[in-house]
């Protein structure tokens, strides 16, 4: 069973139990945050919840770790500029 989540302006397919980062990677998305000072792209780095590099805004809440948050039906994921606040 698959469903889709919203990533910025597009729909991304997701499977139950998949992480947000997993769904985004499977859809070919490699970056979903811009760094605070230089605006450089960031995505998955450690992949295990330690480095806080893969932060993303989920359902309006910034600084969520894409690598450990499981997808949920109807979830909206947005590229996060800077600190997200």
């Amino acid at each position, binding site marked *: 069973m698959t469903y889709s989540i919203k990533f910025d302006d597009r729909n991304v397919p997701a499977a139950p139990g998949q992480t947000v980062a997993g769904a985004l990677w499977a859809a070919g998305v490699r970056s979903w945050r811009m760094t*605070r*000072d230089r605006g450089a792209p960031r995505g998955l780095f450690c992949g295990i919840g330690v480095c806080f590099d893969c932060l993303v805004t989920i359902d309006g809440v*910034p600084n969520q770790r894409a690598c450990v948050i499981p997808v949920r039906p109807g979830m909206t994921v947005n590229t996060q500029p800077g*600190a*997200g*606040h």
Partner: protein
Amino acid sequence: MTDVVVVGAGIVGAACAYYAARAGLTVTVLDRGPIAGGTSGAGEGNLLVSDKAPGPELGLMLESLRLWRELAGVVGPDAIELEPKGGLVVAATAAGLDHALQLADEQREGGVEAIEVPAHRLCAREPRLAEGLAGGIWYPQDLQVQPMLATAYLLRASKATVHCGVDVVSVDRGGVRTRDGRRFRADVIVNAAGVWAGDVAALAGTRLPVAPRRGYVLVTEPLGNRRAPAPIRHKVYAADYMSTVASDDAALQVSAVVEGTRAGTVLIGASRERVGFAAGFSVPALRRLAAEAIRLFPFLADTAVIRAYRGFRPYTPDHLPAIGPDPTRPGLYHACGHEGAGVGLAPVTGAVIAAQILGTPPPVDPAPFAAGRFA
């Protein structure tokens, strides 16, 4: 052969190396871990006069803050993230405020700038502060540095030879030996080993009562960046922080010191517990820290903590550092036991040690800090 071997590449060791080298001595710095790998890398970089009661430590800190500003000119204030942001001590109750104002009066006599901030002006100074506080005191002299950067830049400026991953296993009149069998010869050994300074003293056959006092720091998600810093302007803490620092109680004590950093995160210290070198994290301690911080800044209730770290402050029985020659081991100098004030007190410690080695007049009277006082 160098003139001086410094044991410990933390902020105090780096400052000792810097001032000794500046006085013309050749210096080798040894550490069994990395640069700033102990207490120096596990704090917040608080350089405070606001938490010092009148007495010898206050005079020491005032001189050290003067030296910090001078050092910032040498290595560059941005390199070490020096922020002259000042401290804001707030009191929740009228009684607490009275007590804080009384302390401020005494501090002023010791040379501290302390400006009363009435309750209705607190918000102008610190906009996100909780409402309903009784008032506060603004301490413009309080500074912040990034302690790991400060340690590294001081070591670089000293041009000392630095060996990391080198464990000192014996200390004698002419130098030290390390676990890998090397001999570092020097007429002067400086014990800047922080919480492990008692072990280094024991290697030299002398005694120094330095023990660890555990503390935690919480780190929030970033709330700003270099152009738009986190929405906390000063070092903000509750007036009861001073009694926590001065306490001799071994049990957990918590009072939050809250501050933003250039990286955009907010740091929340500081708990104090005497539990030896106990590893692990105490969730109740972290909870209390967070609750105290939210009491000062209610918006933090909706801010995520991304990590926490732990450090051990080196403290002595009278809560004053040990700075100066060992009374029984010629050539051995102690520069340790600064508890939670090591980053602040590092420059003056280095300057005093260098003066003592060379027999020149020290910048402050070192008598209250004499290492022989525990004998």
